[in-house]
């Protein structure tokens, strides 16, 4: 029974940790399915985290923080779009530029406003997206099997976490079942064909990067107002790149991407639980080894399990109309 409870706690932690990863990976997926490489996930998330924390602190409302963060993140997306769609610039360079600009700009502005080392002050409880207890969570807690699963794992996450999981089927539906999704996929595979059909390639790609902006905005908000309670320098700590890796593992498909994000989050949670625990046979594993686990797993998966990974054909190719 103890073992089962540990498993449930691990799953609970995994769901929490995976939130920003899922959102950012979906953002990358939407953008790259439309043919625009988005290495700037990290920067957009960081920018959104900063704006969300700042606005939530100043207004006392997490919702306003979320809206402002989405606006900021979309603005960064548009810069990326302007450079790489309108002006056919190199998409990797433009995305990297966003990462570097935000990493410097956010703490600088933060320092100018709050004078605490580039961070934002801790948010009061009311200005955060805190754990939501789903209906009947308390009363069902004692029911065997369903109780621990429902109230321990499914209930008690924040709004952004539920939103992240809800967005996976939504993005899948949008990509595969709507006309917009079909065109979006087409523009990432064969923009000439889309252009021939009389649909604007540029406008489609702009919409793709804006969707990525919205998703990164939510991801950043979840970092600074839900998982954490303030903006801290470099708080994304490589999650944007990890999301990019998850998207590639997931072969640019929403459901497999979700799975990849969950695997990453699970190893992260697992390593937290394994520290200082006596395991049968092997005994206590050194901390350094445990911290290495997620990275080792990445290499292992990439080498052995994922199989052939094919990016959208026009991913990263600027579309230049021939006259």
């Amino acid at each position: 029974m103890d073992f089962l409870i540990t498993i449930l706690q691990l799953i609970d932690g995994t769901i929490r940790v995976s939130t920003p990863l899922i959102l950012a990976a979906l953002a990358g997926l939407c953008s790259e399915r439309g043919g625009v490489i988005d290495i700037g996930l990290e920067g957009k998330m960081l920018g959104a985290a900063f704006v969300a924390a700042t606005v939530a602190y100043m207004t006392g409302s997490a919702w306003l923080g979320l809206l402002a963060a989405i606006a900021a993140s979309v603005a960064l997306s548009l810069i990326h779009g302007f450079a790489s769609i309108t002006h056919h610039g190199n998409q990797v360079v433009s995305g990297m530029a966003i990462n570097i600009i935000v990493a410097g700009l956010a703490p600088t502005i933060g320092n100018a406003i709050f004078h605490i080392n580039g961070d934002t002050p801790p948010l009061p409880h009311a200005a955060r997206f805190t754990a939501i207890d789903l209906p009947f969570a308390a009363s069902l807690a004692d029911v065997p099997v369903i109780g621990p699963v429902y109230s321990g794992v499914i209930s008690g996450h924040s709004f952004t976490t539920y939103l992240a999981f809800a967005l996976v089927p939504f993005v899948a539906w949008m990509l595969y079942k709507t006309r917009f999704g079909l065109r979006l996929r087409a523009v990432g595979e064969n923009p000439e064909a889309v252009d021939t059909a009389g649909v604007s390639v540029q406008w489609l790609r702009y919409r793709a990067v804006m969707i990525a902006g919205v998703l990164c905005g939510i991801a950043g908000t979840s970092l600074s107002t839900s998982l954490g309670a303030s903006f801290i320098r470099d708080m994304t700590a490589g999650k944007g790149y990890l999301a990019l890796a998850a998207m590639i593992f997931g072969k640019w498909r929403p459901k497999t991407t979700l799975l990849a994000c969950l695997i990453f989050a699970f190893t992260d949670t697992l390593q937290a639980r394994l520290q200082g625990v006596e395991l049968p046979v092997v005994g206590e594993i050194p901390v350094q080894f445990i911290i290495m686990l997620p990275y080792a797993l990445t290499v292992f998966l990439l080498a052995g399990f994922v199989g052939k990974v094919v990016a959208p054909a026009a991913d990263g190719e600027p579309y230049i109309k021939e006259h």
Partner: protein
Amino acid sequence: MVHKLMRVFLAVILMTLLAGTALAAGPLKAALIYDMGGKFDKSFNEAAYKGAEMFRKEFGDKYRDFEPTNETQYEQAIRRFASRGTDIIVVVGFSYQGVLEKMAPEFPDTKFVIIDSEVKQPNVLSIQFKEHEGSFLVGMIAAMKAKGDTVGFVGGMDVPLIRKFHLGYEEGVHYVKPNAKVLMNMTGTTPSAWADPIRAGELARGQMDRGAEVVYAAAGSSGNGVLQAAADAGRFSIGVDSNQNYLHPGSVLTSMVKRVDLAVFDALKSAREGHFKGGSLHLGLKEGGVDYALDEYNKDLITEEMKAKVDDAKAKIISGEIKVTDYFDIMDK
């Protein structure tokens, strides 16, 4: 033309040099270099900053400070301050040990102070704290507050210094409840572990899921994530270095305060008054270097009975009746 420019250039350099030496006779030129946790980490570095501020208010001497953003800046920062004729440089944190061992002989006329580590050079004052003694006391408080038998510890970077906190804490817990379990996690193994509150918070949540009722954070800036997680869960946490009781009143049980502020202040003062001496200081409960914090934010959490017990143990540690194990004494064995 080029020659003229050169001459002007040289003259300017000469004048700056002269001005530099002229200034040295005036007020004390002090510099503070923080660790990677950053100046306002509400903890260790902030305590050093407060000490320097105290000095500035009392004597009116301005000081300069610097926050490195990566390890390669450690040496540059020390070199820059030292070569500009700074009288005394305080480096905050054990990470400076290697760099200072190299730089102190290079600038024999500059006085150095290093916190949390020892550098054996005639011009270096090494200030270390007996964190294990303070941690013992907060461990006792944690054990007395917990209804069950599990408490937690979240460290920053996995280094002997943090293990020292942990060992003292564990002994304090076991002093009250010999069978209690102390869960332990480290945030990371690189200096960035001092500034990763999200991961530290997740570690604390993990410990609380496993039953920890009180979590002690010895993790610099990352500790804020632990305190936040405990406050969110309605559990208790223990702050470190600075008094962090005010951060989440009602949830922060107490703080293991390390009087870095007083140590910095005293060092700067002695340099100003001309009796600065290199050497090594070990500040414990007896010297007032470490203690547990009791103020208006946590007075309702600590009962009279708990306070009496802790103060009794404190007296016994000072008199030598209770010996708290120093991790540094056992780590190589």
